[in-house]
């Protein structure tokens, strides 16, 4: 009976599972592609193992977030099972098996899609022999499976802990639960950490730009640490600040749509800070890959032979596109699910006097903010770093490549604008059915 109930409820929450399935499949496909690049790169003497590792780290955060989201959606159903007499251990096992089973299907789909994409791109070159195809597929699948196991182990462990902690009463209200903190002044601590790390990061960049050649290796090797901490601290600070601003009942919040939007942003502010930090890192990597790829493809850039240059440049641009797709697709899907869940709120707002047009505007504002919020910190970093690094590159590269970094950043900006407009348009159009009930 439990199994039947579980299957029926899983079917009902198909849209919520879609977020899980899409995220898992897309990211596993990307890990598969990056594993193929790693294997080919290894044979060519390059070390690119850090790429799938980085994607796996991103996936751990995202899947962990989605697991908790799924748990929230089905918490009331779980409470009912416990009330019917199911043991907690059995319930936990059932849910984890369900998630693992779906995860495994995503693994099969992801590796197949990932390898098909890479294979199509790699083996169309007459130089690359098809006989290596099986070997490449087997090895990359094995590597991807290891990453999949790592991701599932970490996420399952966290989910098990969360499920064990929740009692029936808490499960009943889990869906509506808003995150909060006892000490709302905590955000100041995060503000201080952000400032400190950001100054360190800018210091490292200045070191790269201004130190003599022999010392550059030191700032280069540690730059990532203050960068990652400052991104995480920035979002912790921003969300904490908004939450405190709201809880202190600041007068400024009670005008226009600020209260509604702030409440939506801060209802799960702890998780949101983590997720925004991950998306921001995705965005930064995407930018870095774009600039590197385009730079390598410049004919004046004579570091490798033409074939190698083209392979590397195209790989980098593919990575850029992959990160952008991760960024926009998952944020858009998350936003669409949120709008669907908020359809009741939309009805309440209509009764309170918001017209359909005003609701559409409000939803569009939310979409625009959700899609652009993770870029905020990235833009700050770009604003400080690009002019400095551009000056350094002007010094190193030939005169024909003068201000190349500024130019490439501009091109990346244009590329982002295109992606942003497309995804914004799609989400906005799809959200219409939840705003206009008659549609």
């Amino acid at each position, binding site marked *: 009976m439990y199994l039947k109930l579980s299957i029926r409820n899983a079917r009902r929450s198909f849209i919520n599972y879609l977020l899980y399935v899409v995220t898992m499949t897309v990211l596993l496909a990307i890990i598969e592609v990056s594993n193929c690049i790693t294997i080919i790169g290894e044979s060519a003497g390059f070390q690119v193992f850090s790429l799938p590792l980085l994607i796996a780290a991103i996936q751990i955060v995202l899947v962990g977030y989605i697991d908790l989201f799924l748990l929230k959606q089905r918490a009331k159903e779980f409470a009912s099972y416990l009330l019917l007499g199911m043991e907690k251990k059995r319930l936990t096992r059932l849910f984890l098996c369900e998630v693992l089973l779906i995860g495994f299907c995503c693994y099969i789909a992801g590796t197949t899609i990932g390898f098909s994409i890479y294979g199509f791109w790699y083996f169309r070159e007459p130089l690359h022999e098809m006989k290596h195809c099986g070997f490449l597929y087997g090895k990359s699948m094995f590597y991807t499976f290891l990453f999949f196991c790592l991701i599932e182990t970490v996420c399952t462990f966290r989910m098990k802990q969360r499920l064990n902690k929740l009692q029936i009463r808490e499960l009943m*209200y889990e869906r*509506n*639960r*808003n995150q909060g903190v006892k000490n709302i002044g905590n955000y100041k601590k995060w503000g201080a950490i952000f400032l400190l790390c950001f100054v360190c990061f800018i210091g490292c960049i200045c070191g790269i730009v201004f130190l003599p050649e022999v010392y550059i290796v030191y700032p280069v090797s540690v730059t990532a640490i203050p960068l990652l901490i400052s991104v995480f601290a920035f979002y912790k600070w921003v969300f904490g600040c908004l939450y405190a601003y*709201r*809880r202190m*009942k600041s*007068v*400024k919040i*009670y*005008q*226009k749509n*600020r*209260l*509604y939007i702030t*409440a*939506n942003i801060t*209802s799960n502010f702890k998780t949101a800070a983590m997720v925004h930090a991950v998306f921001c890192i995705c965005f930064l990597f995407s930018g870095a890959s774009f600039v590197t790829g385009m730079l390598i493809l410049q004919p004046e850039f004579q570091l490798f032979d033409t074939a190698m240059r083209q392979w590397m440049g195209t790989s980098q641009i593919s990575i850029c596109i992959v990160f952008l797709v991760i960024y926009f697709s998952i944020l858009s899907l998350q936003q669409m699910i949120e709008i669907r869940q908020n359809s*009741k*709120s939309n*009805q*309440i*707002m*209509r*009764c*309170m*006097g*918001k*017209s*359909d*047009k*005003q609701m559409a505007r409000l939803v569009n504002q939310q979409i625009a903010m959700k899609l652009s919020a993770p870029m905020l910190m990235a833009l700050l970093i770009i604003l400080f770093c690009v002019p400095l690094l551009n000056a350094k590159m002007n010094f190193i590269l030939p005169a024909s490549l003068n201000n190349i970094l500024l130019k490439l950043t501009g091109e990346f900006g244009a590329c982002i604008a295109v992606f942003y407009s497309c995804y914004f348009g799609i989400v906005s159009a799809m959200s219409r059915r939840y705003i206009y009930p008659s549609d």
Partner: protein
Amino acid sequence: MMNQIKIGAFISERRKAKGWTQSQLAEKLEITDKAISKWETGRSMPDLSLFLPLCTLLDVTLNELFAGECIAEEKWKERADEVLMDVITNWLGHDNREKVHSRESKENDTPPENVLEVENVSKRYENVSTGHETKNNSVLAVNDVSFQIPHGSFVGIMGASGSGKTTLLNLVATIDKPTNGTIRISGQNIVDIPDEAAAEFRRRHLGFVFQEYNLLETLTIYENIALALTIKEVSKESIRPTIQSLSEKLDISAILDKFPYEVSGGQRQRCACARAIVVNPDIILADEPTGALDSHAARQLLDTLAMLCREYGATILMVTHDVMAASYCDRILFMKDGEIKTSLNREQESKQTFFADILKKIEWIEGESHDVLEVVNP
């Protein structure tokens, strides 16, 4: 007696002389602009605590305000005594006034202004296969309904499920449009207004209390009430004092910082009432507000609604099928098959007697349908 309309016109005249808009005066007094509008049209008087600040702002004395005109110096003493006498008469009258007295005085004086006027309203849904009357795949949910609701009254609509009461409420709420007839709220015909104007109308004139509370789960109780005020674009400085004074009245001050899921159903519903009344609507529409509550919480809520009616002059239209809830109303309309079959006015009888009267009416309506059935199937 004090002439509210004259006082209102005087406030309006002095405000204009100062060159202020209603919103600017409201902002200075930290109240809603709707309250100013109600004073100026003679629909209500300022609260006691606002008389002195209002006089200071308008540069008039309290005597002049109550007289509704500027008083020349030579007539000062004579007019001051007249005003004082008016105030005392009004005060004593008010002190002794219970609901019964209020009703008597209303009957003796001019009848109160109607907030809601429904005339020959019908609603037919096309292409529906289920319902109580199905012809050519269409359902007549509301059939030629007419009634009026005077200002400050608490009116209930009773009827079994599918009798058309919620449809009627939706028509009044501008959520749905009638097939025929007119609906006027505060004199404005709401039948043909476009969607954008309907939203504006809901914002300015209507308050809602639903069966399922319908509070936003991401907002605290305080924020839920504040949201209604921000949507109405009330000055941001006046929000906190307004919510605090209202929450004390409704006994929800202690839970203002909690989220809806952290409080009981009864408290949630009182918060929904606070959200509805805080914007000072012309009429509050309540759709089975006690439906999800236990009897104790339901009684508390109904007491709250009756208090809003009595002390805030709120006009309430409540849909219910609960006889106990209906016994709190001043008047009940009984609906069946989309029509108002009969109505019942509460005169001076106690709640218990009124309760018994409602039961008799229901029995009568049911008996009527049995008679019809007997004729059809002898």
